[in-house]
């Protein structure tokens, strides 16, 4: 009985207290339509974006992380002890940058970002720095030594005459050297010069790591408007439409008529003498140039049938006109073993060797083959989608449409395609990037893209 009383007391204690009188408060019943409408009209209006809201510029990176080329230090050295370093970033990852990035370039394990600002810091670099391809990055621990790996975008000090007036137009990266193009002070080169690719005299047994040397090139017939780095050579295109080259030439990629090393930028002749060239491209050992009339010229390595339509030799050291009957060509891009061109109508043609983008059956072709526009999203529902730009990495391709979508295909080396999967992609596949893609740079195993947000 005592136990029963104890239980009753406990139960009684748990019973909720009787409801308190609310006094003058009204009962909350179902509201009428008029009350709901009045409550709705009285609700505050929140503004998230004003009429003059500008679209933000963002940078996304993906690919192999261990070299530091993605610029996110937590991928290589995690902030928290229990996290493991990330080897591959297989989908686009946003990179915070201090300024709006206008040009980016990916080399072999390193990246350069440049902004067209008038501030003192115009170029940032990250990734491998064993040949000082990112300039001298002073180590914080030892003031005399430099960093071999740069894990986040670090400013590159350029020896400019007018640092607050000159603007950097474009950057380009090769295997172990980089070129920076300015609007009034010529071209700055840094990095490995064992084949003269930096445009200065080769010094025997030079040590390239931790070097402060940045060379400036000014002697061209007119202002340089585009710089392109191949694997171990450099190409310069001037306003007059002439092309200069320097660097390794064993495959004829300098196009100067010989197979030797050139250490001073020299003008190219051959089929492009007198032709106004509007675009040059190179990634490996083959080079392509597009003239203002829509013709394409090629020189360099032809082991993979890149230039097989004009010649049987595997090395071409003089620029040759490639007589393709595919229409007027607007843009060309050279990869390691395959090439791609974009015509005025917006069609994409590929040739060469490797995964060319027309299924697993097409491995090599000497004649350009068109990639069907329906693979880029063109259909009866949206017939006005065209490819606007094409880019090439060492063994993969990228295309940007006029709607700002990015398509990639090719060999998925260490996740460089950004599709989220590790398999090779045999036909163009969309990369989901939260924004409209403006430009993309392809490297050997990573990619960087510049994106404008939607609103």
């Amino acid at each position: 009985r005592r136990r029963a009383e104890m239980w009753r007391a406990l139960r009684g204690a748990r019973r909720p207290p009787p409801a308190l009188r609310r006094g003058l408060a009204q009962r909350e019943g179902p509201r009428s339509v008029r009350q709901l409408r009045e409550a709705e009209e009285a609700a505050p209006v929140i503004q998230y974006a004003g009429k003059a809201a500008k679209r933000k510029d963002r940078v996304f990176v993906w690919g192999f992380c261990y070299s530091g080329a993605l610029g996110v230090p937590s991928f290589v050295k995690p902030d928290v002890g229990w996290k493991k370093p990330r080897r591959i970033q297989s989908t686009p990852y946003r990179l915070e940058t201090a300024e709006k990035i206008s040009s980016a370039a990916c080399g072999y394990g390193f990246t350069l970002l440049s902004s067209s600002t008038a501030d003192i810091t115009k170029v940032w670099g990250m990734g491998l720095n064993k040949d000082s391809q990112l300039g001298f990055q002073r180590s914080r621990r030892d003031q005399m030594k430099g960093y071999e790996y740069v894990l986040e975008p670090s400013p590159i000090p350029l020896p400019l005459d007018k640092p607050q007036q000159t603007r950097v137009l474009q950057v380009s990266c090769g295997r172990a050297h980089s070129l920076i193009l300015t609007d009034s002070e010529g071209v700055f080169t840094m990095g490995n010069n064992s084949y003269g690719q930096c445009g200065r005299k080769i010094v025997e047994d030079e040590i390239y790591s931790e070097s402060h040397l940045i060379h400036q090139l000014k002697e061209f017939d007119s202002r340089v408007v585009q710089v392109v780095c191949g694997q171990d050579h450099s190409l310069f295109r001037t306003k007059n439409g002439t092309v200069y080259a320097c660097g390794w030439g064993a495959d004829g990629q300098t196009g100067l008529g010989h197979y030797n090393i050139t250490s001073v930028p020299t003008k190219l002749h051959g089929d492009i003498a007198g032709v106004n060239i509007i675009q040059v491209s190179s990634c490996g050992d083959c080079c392509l140039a597009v003239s203002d009339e829509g013709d394409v010229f090629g020189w360099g390595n032809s082991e993979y049938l890149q230039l097989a339509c004009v010649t049987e030799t595997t090395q071409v050291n003089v620029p040759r006109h490639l007589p393709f009957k595919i229409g007027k060509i607007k843009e060309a891009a050279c990869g390691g073993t395959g090439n791609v061109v974009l015509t005025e109508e917006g069609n994409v043609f590929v040739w060469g060797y490797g995964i060319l983008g027309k299924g697993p059956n097409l491995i090599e072709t000497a004649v350009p083959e068109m990639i069907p526009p329906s693979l880029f999203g063109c259909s009866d529902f949206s017939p006005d989608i065209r490819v606007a730009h094409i880019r090439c990495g060492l063994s993969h391709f990228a295309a940007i449409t006029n709607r700002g979508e990015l398509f990639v295909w090719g060999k998925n080396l260490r996740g460089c395609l950004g599709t989220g999967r590790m398999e090779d992609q045999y036909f163009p596949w969309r990369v989901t990037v939260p924004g409209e893609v403006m430009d993309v740079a392809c490297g050997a195993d990573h990619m960087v893209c510049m994106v404008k947000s939607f609103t």
Partner: protein
Amino acid sequence: LNAAPGRAPRQHVRFLPAPADGGATGLVPMRVPVLADHPLVRGPRFRQLKIGAGHRLDVKASGVFVLGIGHGNKLLTDLYNCHLTRVYTIGGLFGKATDDFSDTGKLVEKTTFDHITREKLERILAVIQGTNHKALLMYSNIDMKTQEAYELAVRGLIRPMGKSPPIITAIRCLQFTLPEFQLEIHCLHETQQYLRKVVHEIGLELKSSAVCTQVRRIRDGVFTLDDALLRTQWDLQNIQNAISGCQLKVKTEIERILG
């Protein structure tokens, strides 16, 4: 249906007593209708009809709704296995966000919308279409490395032939007058509430908010608005005409896809 003239009653031969010549009763064979076939004995011919419904259309939406009658229900399963696309016209309104994404729900938030332009909306729609196209290829369970996958992708024939989350195959803006807008959406395996959620998400992407005011299905596989019967046309003659009109279309479509 029951008022229509039915089958004529069966006739059989019975020997009925009838006065023969001479006054004596004899049996005369006569053809008389079978009593069991008399309408008062048999009752109405149709007491129930088997009616099956096609893809669901919820209470707040309107438009084409496919029904199968009797033997047509077997065609309904075949049509389901064809995984055809449906087309909707969705009306939306900027400036409000509600809990069930339609304009009759409880208000959650009100926002400004004067910064929205048609260009921004079309950009968002292009991205939605792109990501859904990617989902289309991924859920179709085809190995991307084969040549057939490439050929189907070129012709645009890859589609999921099994269960998949809702996929939008095409989306475009028909009208845009702030704060209202109208979209046309082609989709697979969807529900109308998912389409309302898409409108809400478009509002969020544009840094504002949106609710869905109208969902109207204008095409369901092979059935379009022209084939659909209005409320005033729900009588026997129209239904029979509609069925005979659509029979050929449905048969060819099923044969084309399922083989």
